[in-house]
């Protein structure tokens, strides 16, 4: 793990939220790199190395995926399903990061093997704390699987 660049994949359609996440992570040096995707389709293209991401060199496996649920083109849940149904990708921890507190969403996420479900807090300190803890937990404490490239 040490020395290996930590890659976080962020799938988020809201530019402001993405900025909040990225900024917080950078400040807290949680990740070396955050790759941001605006919709489900482009995220899947990256993960499955399609089209512009066909070259594995340009599309390294992320250590953790932060996934919003309501996404344009391909919905977050469909991205989650695709990841967890893929033998290559299913071991990547997927953390659902959304504004929705709806039970239905929580249930659907866990049913599709989400590793964690986080609701974006309203409030600056709370948001920062959560990102902090998130980084610490998934990228610090947690032992991640070794992924073949």
């Amino acid at each position, binding site marked *: 793990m040490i020395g290996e660049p930590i890659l976080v994949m962020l799938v988020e359609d809201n530019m*402001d939220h993405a900025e909040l996440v990225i900024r917080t992570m950078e400040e807290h040096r949680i990740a070396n790199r955050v790759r941001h995707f*605006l919709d489900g389709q482009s995220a899947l293209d990256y993960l499955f190395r399609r089209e512009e991401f066909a070259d594995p060199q340009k599309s390294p496996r992320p250590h953790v995926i932060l996934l919003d649920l309501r996404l344009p083109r391909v919905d977050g849940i469909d991205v989650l399903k695709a990841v967890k149904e893929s033998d290559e990708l299913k071991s990547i921890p997927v953390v659902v990061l*959304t504004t*929705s507190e709806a039970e239905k969403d929580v249930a659907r996420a866990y049913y599709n093997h989400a590793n964690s479900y986080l609701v974006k807090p309203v409030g600056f*300190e709370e948001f920062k704390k959560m990102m902090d803890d998130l980084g610490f937990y998934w990228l610090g404490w947690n032992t991640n699987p070794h992924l073949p490239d």
Partner: protein
Amino acid sequence: MYRFFQLPDFGSDERNASARLIFSLAISMGLMSVLLAAAVWIAMPALLPRALMIAGAIMLACAVSVTLICRGGIRAAGVLLVFVLWAAITAGAVTAGGIGAPVVIGYVVVIMMGGLLWKDPQRMLITVFCILTAAAIALAQQGSLLPPPIEYPPAARFGVYLFFFIIAAIIQRVSALNASELIKKVQSSEIRYRSLLENIPVTTYLSGMELESPFQYISPQIENLLGYPRANFTLDPLFWTKILHPDDAERVLEQSRRSAQTLEPFAMEYRVIAKDGRTVWLKDESVLVRDENGTPSYWLGVWTDITNLKKAEEEQTELINRLTRRTLHLQTAADVARAATSILDIEALLSQTADLIQTHFECYYVGVFLVDETGEWAVLRAATGEIGKQMINMGHRLKVEASSMIGWSITHRQARIALDVGADAVRLANPSLPLTRSEIALPLSAHGKVIGAMTIQSEKPSAFSRVDVTALQAMADLVANAIENARLFTERGLLNKELELQNEELERFTYTVSHDLRSPLVTIRGFLGYLRQDVISGNMKRFNEDLTRIANAVDKMQTLLNELLALSRVGRIANPPESVPFDAIVWEALNLLSGPLDAAKTRVKVAAEFPTVRVDRLRIVEVIQNLVSNAAKFMGDQAEPSIEIGAHGTDSDGKPIFYIRDNGIGIEPQYHERIFGLFNRLDPSIEGTGIGLTLVKRIIETHGGRIWVESERGKGATFFFTLPPA
């Protein structure tokens, strides 16, 4: 004389008479012989021994005869008496005086006795025998074979004569007595029979062997029974055929002819018309009477009045029929009630009811009509059989007016019964139901209003009674209520479904709102924190950026709230629809959008001709506004953005179709449905709340229209929608 002795009854009048005769003769002969002997003793003492001998023999014979009679041996007694008398006469003639002896006159008495006691040929035999005996005596005397005759003194001769005279007188007297008694007896028995015949409660008659011979006799009861004089029957051979009930005449005459041929007993029940016009049921039974030689001589018949019996029988049959029908009604009612309470689907209920009534009442056709929404037509909704199916498929309907039985019963709210439809002008003969002879139309009314009517038709004329109508009407009411209930239930079901849909949408709505309204809040609160940091660090560039983010998020929230409000107003607040030329709406919307459209240099081409529509004008302006600004928004890198607004014919319902076409980025077919869903956005990089198209769709739908999109990615998009015409 015999009265002193009570003779037993010998079983028949004839035997009794014979017994009486022989008894009288025996007694009188006995007595007479005693007197004779006494007379001989006085007048001719010389002959006394012989006289005593003869008298003794006669008395002995008389005693034996009387004994025999008392023991029932009438015949033997007669034979004995006749024989003894004959023997005594013959002995007297032979021994004293030959053929000239006065005793020979006794043969006359013997012949008379024989005549009384026997019939031919014995009677003849005795006569011949007596003649022969007398002849033999005469011949013997001629041949001098007999002793010389004694000269009887006149007194003795008179004595002998007297003896026989008296016996003859007794014979005459007894036989006369017997004869008169017999006649009296016969007369009394005929009176008895006649009074019996004429008093028993039936009419008897005798009729000749010829078919058309008049009645030889008819008992007077007939006058009470039918009121016609007896003479009519006995004088006019065809009279009885004239009073036969026309419905029965044929079979009665036929049966009577058959009986006349076969000579079998005749037995029949039929109706005749009495003089006062009453119909009388008769039971006619007659048998052939033959004479002693076996030749048919006449018919002996009896007419019994069975009118009451028949009436009772008919009443019983009627009662049974009524009970059977009643049971049937109850059974049908129970079945219909079960169907009515358990079936909530109207069509199923109607067809089941029709089938139940048809089966139970064995009728030819049952149809159920319901009044349509306009109230002008009664539409056939359920009917039995193939014909029924065809008529339903043909959309059979009747005008709600008095020209048809169905229409009549709906407008009059009353059952109508036609017992022979040929004669009832109100029924419109239906060529599909040619066999109908009687029909009932029953109104179906529930909660005080007539919702339709039921027709029940039979192939039999007069198939329905008032009782049937009452029972069927009760059933019809039941069905009507059930239909109404089913209708309410269906309505409630639809309402439930709608509520469910609304609920689902509400759930989606609150969910999305909690998500989408929360989203700008996260932004606002998050960047507010950074704003403070920016101030502290003096990074004014980031401060401005963050401030813009916050301001945008606030705007976004504002827009979101406004649009949500607009969405919630659709269907809730409706302006009264007005007839507007569609181009007026288009131009109003374009005016509102002129700023942004000009800014984007979008060319808008509006067709010259548009139909007029009947709509909530403000809402449709909103629709055009939304669709046009959407089109302008998704132009991508189109160098010559253009939007075309036009009308394109009408749909199958006659609603005009409008379209808004752009040459923008287009929409992939898999998103054609999704774009109309609440908060569904395809491109996050383009401003929007995801409410616009949902709003458009809902407004179009509240106008009874439809909206759809035709597009391919990169080839522009055309939104079509329909609106009600003015």
